[in-house]
């Protein structure tokens, strides 16, 4: 338990930004408080791969200088943020959790990093992740696992476990993740935080190291729905440097979060996905999920059941499409222009050096997926695997279209179970993949999804995530429903869920 109030690390991002803008706190004080917290607890949590104390304090001092000059500050100016190590940061190490990029100093900033800097958000460090974002537990990091602050023997989800854990450990009030099959939402669910996968194409992929280009999407992670919305509006928007970036206005997500908290969800049509329930779902996950659906119905939402039969095949389709794209994208790690090089002894050829380097530089899950993708794209297997998966992708999109004719949003548990134990699934890829069962359809369809905490499972006292899905470019609906649920649950509990996280 902790005392709320003046302790800077416990405050929301919105609250911190207001305190900095009013002069109650300096940005340097706020950044220093978080650096101190990281120094104190990160040897237990291991959320960070790199802490950029110098860069963060300089950025914070610049915010204080702006304020002293009377310049107007942005809505999150001076607030510290933990950036997933899959986004390039100029001159600051970027590893993607891989040995192959150990020590790499990118010569450019990702658009997300640039937008954060331009908004005066203070990037405090780079967070741990499954290697190249391939995994559901952060155990696939070459630099060791991140631990879940709710129970240090358990995983914080993945691939963005470092970003999610940094929020729960009060090391940062904001974080950025990337979501290819659930890597923002699933860690949010198992850590009791908020995570959003925006509509595909609404957050630039420039400088987001590519895993599966038709699925990857950066997005906000926070402790509250409003904080996520404030961050969403900063990172989203058209970018000419990403050819798949959508040239459309960003949906009004901050206004939607405020409206959801104030007015609720009266009149909104909510569809419960029939496929994501029953066998394989932990009893506490089902219980908290259904209680939340009842709560939303009690607030005046119209709840119906939605049948989306193709969703049963989203997981196998994803584990063909994502590895196929990864086998192509990761071909860039050839030991020639950046990163690790092994075996360059004047005897080995370039091709042999590439193979020796990739053998030494990639971990087992990355190797598995590259080989699986290579297999799925092979002549003779292409039609049965990659080709068929692309057709299933069409069926999933059609099921979404049909559902969104009847309802405004779809809801389900974010992930079938609460946080599992470190090591439990590490050598059983198929059981590990099940963690993404409910999050994957959204990535395949390119629409928007959010996970918001909906309580602790009675059987183990661990957080449960409530997933909300909305049509492409209707991300604001996520925030309206998420904020309404968050407000109603906090009203019931009498406090935010993170007040129950054990002290570190």
């Amino acid at each position: 338990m902790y005392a709320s109030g003046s302790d800077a690390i416990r405050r929301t991002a919105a609250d911190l930004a207001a305190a900095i803008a009013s002069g109650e706190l300096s940005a340097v004080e706020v950044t220093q408080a978080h650096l101190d917290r990281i120094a104190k607890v990160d040897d237990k949590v291991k959320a960070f791969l790199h802490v950029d104390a110098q860069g963060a304090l300089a950025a914070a001092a610049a915010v204080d200088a702006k304020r002293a000059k009377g310049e107007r500050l942005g809505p999150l100016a001076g607030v510290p943020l933990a950036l997933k190590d899959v986004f390039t940061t100029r001159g600051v190490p970027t590893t993607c959790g891989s040995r192959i990029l150990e020590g790499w100093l990118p010569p450019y900033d990702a658009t997300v990093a640039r937008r954060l800097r331009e908004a005066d958000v203070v990037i405090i460090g780079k967070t741990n992740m499954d290697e190249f974002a391939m995994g559901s537990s952060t155990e696939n990091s070459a630099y060791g696992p991140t631990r879940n602050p709710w129970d240090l023997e358990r995983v914080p989800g993945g691939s963005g476990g470092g970003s999610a854990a940094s929020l729960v450990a009060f090391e940062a009030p904001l974080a950025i993740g990337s979501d290819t099959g659930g890597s923002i939402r699933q860690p949010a669910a198992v850590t009791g935080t908020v995570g959003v996968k925006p509509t595909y194409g609404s957050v630039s992929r420039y400088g987001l190291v590519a895993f599966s280009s038709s699925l990857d999407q950066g997005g906000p992670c926070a402790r509250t729905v409003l904080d996520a919305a404030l961050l969403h509006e900063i990172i989203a928007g058209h970018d000419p440097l990403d050819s798949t970036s959508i040239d459309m206005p960003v949906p009004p997500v901050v206004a939607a979060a405020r409206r959801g908290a104030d007015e609720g969800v009266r009149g909104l049509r909510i569809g419960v996905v029939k496929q994501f329930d029953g066998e394989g779902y932990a009893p506490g996950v089902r219980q908290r999920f259904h209680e939340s659906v009842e709560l939303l119905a009690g607030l005046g939402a119209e709840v119906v059941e939605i049948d989306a039969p193709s969703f049963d095949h989203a997981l196998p389709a994803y584990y063909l499409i994502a590895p196929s794209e990864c086998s192509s994208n990761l071909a860039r790690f050839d030991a020639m222009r950046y990163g690790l090089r092994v075996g360059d002894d004047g005897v080995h050829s370039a091709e042999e050096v590439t193979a020796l380097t990739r053998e030494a530089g990639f971990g087992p899950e990355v190797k598995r997926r590259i080989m699986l993708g290579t297999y799925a794209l092979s002549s003779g297997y292409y039609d049965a695997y990659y080709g068929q998966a692309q057709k299933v992708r069409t069926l999933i999109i059609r099921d979404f279209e049909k559902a969104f004719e009847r309802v405004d949003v779809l809801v389900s548990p974010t992930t079938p179970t609460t946080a599992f134990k470190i090591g439990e699934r590490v050598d059983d890829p198929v059981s590990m993949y099940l963690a993404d069962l409910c999050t994957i359809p959204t990535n395949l369809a390119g629409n928007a999804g959010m996970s918001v905490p909906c309580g602790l499972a009675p059987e183990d006292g661990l957080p449960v995530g409530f997933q909300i899905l909305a049509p492409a470019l209707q991300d604001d609906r996520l925030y309206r429903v998420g904020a309404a649920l968050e407000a109603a649950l906090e009203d019931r509990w009498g406090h935010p869920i993170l007040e129950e996280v054990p002290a570190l």
Partner: protein
Amino acid sequence: MPSITREEVAHLAKLSRLELSDAELDHFAGQLDAIVSAVARVGELPTEHVPPTSHPQPLTNVFRADIVRPAGTPVLDRAEVLAQAPAAEDERFRVPRILGED
């Protein structure tokens, strides 16, 4: 559906430019077989007249105007890039030999 043999894994590793050890070949053969058996379920759905989707958005080629980019547009610095190379020589990337001995 076909099961994946150790020999197939060795072939995939070669295509993937991965110099796998013998122990890895044994280990991955069983795992890849289990994964392929699981993902083969995509074949259960009838998709005879269903078009494939490769991307969630309709993709069109994107051109930029043929003008000098404004200051501040990211342009990579040569020295900064070469400083990150595994090996550089004469302001270029130095790579191992690419031609065979014979």
